[in-house]
């Protein structure tokens, strides 16, 4: 055996810290981009990424992964799957590609920041691979939906979404800009690699794969699980950062970074993953409920890991558990009602059988969310489709950018948490979003929600057509309509007839 083992030379390849002479250390590693926690260079040299790969291995393995993903696409593109795919499922795909493809590309820059500004040589090398990974994810997730634009213009959002100011996009950008685009290398490694990539991307990239397989979309399930196999590696950047911070007396700071980012990402993924899982996937193909999935992946797998590296569950844990029961159900109602403002066709999809399933998975659903849908169903049965559009403007949270809502029904849970700061009033959906704002009001104060923009004159005049155009609706593609053209109420029509 003539070649050396990786372990023999790997350490040397990350002994690359040196003491700058011609420029000052804080010039080479400005605190804002590098390490605001003020740990010495030496402390970061202990950084040991648990998942190791060499460049030689990387290009080989990644080449194989791509050969696999692209070949499967090529082979199956002749199958007629998308011709006859369920409209709810197509909505899931549109939502996915619109939300994910270019966000992955932004992550290249975030990885680039870690690669340039981290004081930990191990992190600099590992995020070079991370950067490449994110490029891969972007390219896959542009190339795959590209062929779908010939069928349906709403797939154009795969490329266009983040270039628009659609309210859903603003929500995603606010979150991602916060956790990965405007933080130093260390905080980014906690927020992006640990909270986001270790904690929550599994929901979308692995969870949905099971449903996709059931539905027969092997191309998609193969692609997203292949993507996730990259995450499993580079997401490991976060844990050593946290361990080093804890070891150097910065546990509170690490905890705060986690608490902020976990909540932010949760609020987003519940929409991105929760709604499709519990509403868009046809009932007979559903693998498990979003809640069960959260248990498997987040509560069991992620939190246990969190614990093992020495952090605590976020302070708002009980609120989080409660939110798992509510958030995405509320937003399903909201998105469906405001369907003309989104780029996919959200199915109402709460027929009698679906409701039974929802009630079983989320006890109490019928008495709360069910009542909300009862009114809608009643209107549809009476032929008053127009009454199923709210024709008013919701209050949008100044943190997560999502309409403020909570479980309907007798308990009056929906409530706005308000804060006045520098003569401006801010609205929040939950105490947690409010708490995040309060940690760093200067960071968040200037951003206007889509609704703020209607009042502040950014969208002028704030008429519905103007707002839609501003959001890219009618520009990139038409807005959404009910995914099943209301056929899901047929079950109720039959019940009424009987």
């Amino acid at each position: 055996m003539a070649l050396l083992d990786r372990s023999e030379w790997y350490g040397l390849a990350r002994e690359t810290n040196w003491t700058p002479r011609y420029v000052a250390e804080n010039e080479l590693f400005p605190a804002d981009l590098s390490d605001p926690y003020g740990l010495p260079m030496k402390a970061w040299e202990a950084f040991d990424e648990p998942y190791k790969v060499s460049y030689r291995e990387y290009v080989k393995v990644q080449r194989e992964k791509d050969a696999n993903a692209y070949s499967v696409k090529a082979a199956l593109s002749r199958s007629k799957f998308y011709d006859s795919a369920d409209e709810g499922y197509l909505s899931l795909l549109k939502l996915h590609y619109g939300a994910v493809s270019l966000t992955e590309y932004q992550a290249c820059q975030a990885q680039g920041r870690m690669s340039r500004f981290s004081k930990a040589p191990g992190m600099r090398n590992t995020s070079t691979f991370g950067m490449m990974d994110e490029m891969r994810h972007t390219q896959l997730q542009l190339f795959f939906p590209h062929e779908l634009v010939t069928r349906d213009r709403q797939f154009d959002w795969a490329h266009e979404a983040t270039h628009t100011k659609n309210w859903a996009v603003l929500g995603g950008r606010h979150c991602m800009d916060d956790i990965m685009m405007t933080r130093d290398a260390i905080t980014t490694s906690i927020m992006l690699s640990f909270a986001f990539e270790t904690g929550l991307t599994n929901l979308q990239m692995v969870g949905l794969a099971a449903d996709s397989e059931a539905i027969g979309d092997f191309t998609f399930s193969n692609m997203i699980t292949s993507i996730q196999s990259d995450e499993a590696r580079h997401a490991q950047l976060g844990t050593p950062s946290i361990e080093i911070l804890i070891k150097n007396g910065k546990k509170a700071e690490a905890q705060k970074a986690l608490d902020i980012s976990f909540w932010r990402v949760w609020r987003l993924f519940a929409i991105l993953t929760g709604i499709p899982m519990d509403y868009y996937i046809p009932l007979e193909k559903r693998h498990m409920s979003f809640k069960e999935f959260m248990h498997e992946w987040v509560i069991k797998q992620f939190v246990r890991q969190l614990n093992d590296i020495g952090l605590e569950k976020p302070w708002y844990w009980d609120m989080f558990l409660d939110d798992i029961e509510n958030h995405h159900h509320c937003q399903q109602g909201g998105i469906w009602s405001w369907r003309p403002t989104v780029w996919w066709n959200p199915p109402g999809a709460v027929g009698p059988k679906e409701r039974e399933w929802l009630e079983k998975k989320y006890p109490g659903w019928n008495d709360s969310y069910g009542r909300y849908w009862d009114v809608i169903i009643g209107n549809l049965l009476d032929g008053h489709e127009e009454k199923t559009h709210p024709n008013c403007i919701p209050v949008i949270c100044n943190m997560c950018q999502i309409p403020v809502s909570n479980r309907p029904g007798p308990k009056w849970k929906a409530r706005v948490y308000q804060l006045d700061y520098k003569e401006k009033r801010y609205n929040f959906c939950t105490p947690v979003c409010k708490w995040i704002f309060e940690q760093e009001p200067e960071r968040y104060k200037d951003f206007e929600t889509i609704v703020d923009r209607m009042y502040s004159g950014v969208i002028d005049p704030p008429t519905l057509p103007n707002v839609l155009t501003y959001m890219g609706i009618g520009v990139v593609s038409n807005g959404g309509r009910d995914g099943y053209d209301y056929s899901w109420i047929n079950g109720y029509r039959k019940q009424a007839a009987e």
Partner: protein
Amino acid sequence: MADTDDLSKPLKTFSHLAKQKRRPSEYEIVSTNLIWSTADPKAPWAMSPDMPLSQWYIRHRNQSPLRHDDWNAFRDPDQMVYRTYNMLQDGQESYVDGLLDDHSRNEHDKGLSRHWLDALRQLYTPGRYLVHTVQMSSAYLVQLAHASTVENCAMFQSADQLRWVQRIAYRTKELSKNHPSLGFGTTERRSWEDDAAWQGFRELMEKTLTAYDWGEQLAALNLVAKPAIDEAYFRQLGHAARRNGDTLLGLLNDAALIDSERSRRWTKGLIDFVLKKDGNKAVLDGWVKKWAPLGDKAIDDFCAALPESPEAAGEARTAAREWRKTLGF
């Protein structure tokens, strides 16, 4: 007549490419117009424009004197996508594996002279620090690129450097195993920080890394520092290696220069692209003038220490300059 703005008509490609009215390549589909943080020059991010990172982008990217009104029009002459990059480099790495394996079987290291081993310890193995700085600097270009087509090139460039950081580390370890008493694997940092041969490159790279204006970093790195490193550290050191019976290093450095060729192709493409806009020539001239002496000095310092290579510095300086000349400087 089909109209891409007519929403009732299906698209043949993403709307932003539909205007070309030709079938887009895979490269175009997956690489173009992916950045949206340039849309509002005053607020790159949803976070407050006053935030340090927002300010950073505004100052160092948006307000760079190197300007173009349509950065997205740039195209990589190699039209490299991630998929093809890995195919290419997997092949290249198989070749390097083969080199290492063969030479190791032939006990190549045992045959090296003490004289040359000293040179390797002084001038080759500390190079991982140097190449790593290029990796970092390229990553900076990634972070602040105006257009995805530029950003991707920088990403491949950064990954290429990591490739050589690891191959140098590999060789360092191999040399230390075959010659345990010579300090391979332990003295590199000291050489990089203290040896006169390295101080030119160290100064060049420390300053390049902190030239935070995006355009200036591009000029300093890709027009001056990288060519200097290619010519001195890879090419001239490779020549010297061959003269000293170290065929392995000669071949390894040739392989590294293949990556550099690719980097030069897109650099030339990008420079040609920006020079079509008024004002950029002067800006770049200024930077080249400012950085070239540091590059020359780095070459001189390094080549001076190269054994039996009196002509090395001259050749390297000329080669770097000649290349810049082909770009118009």
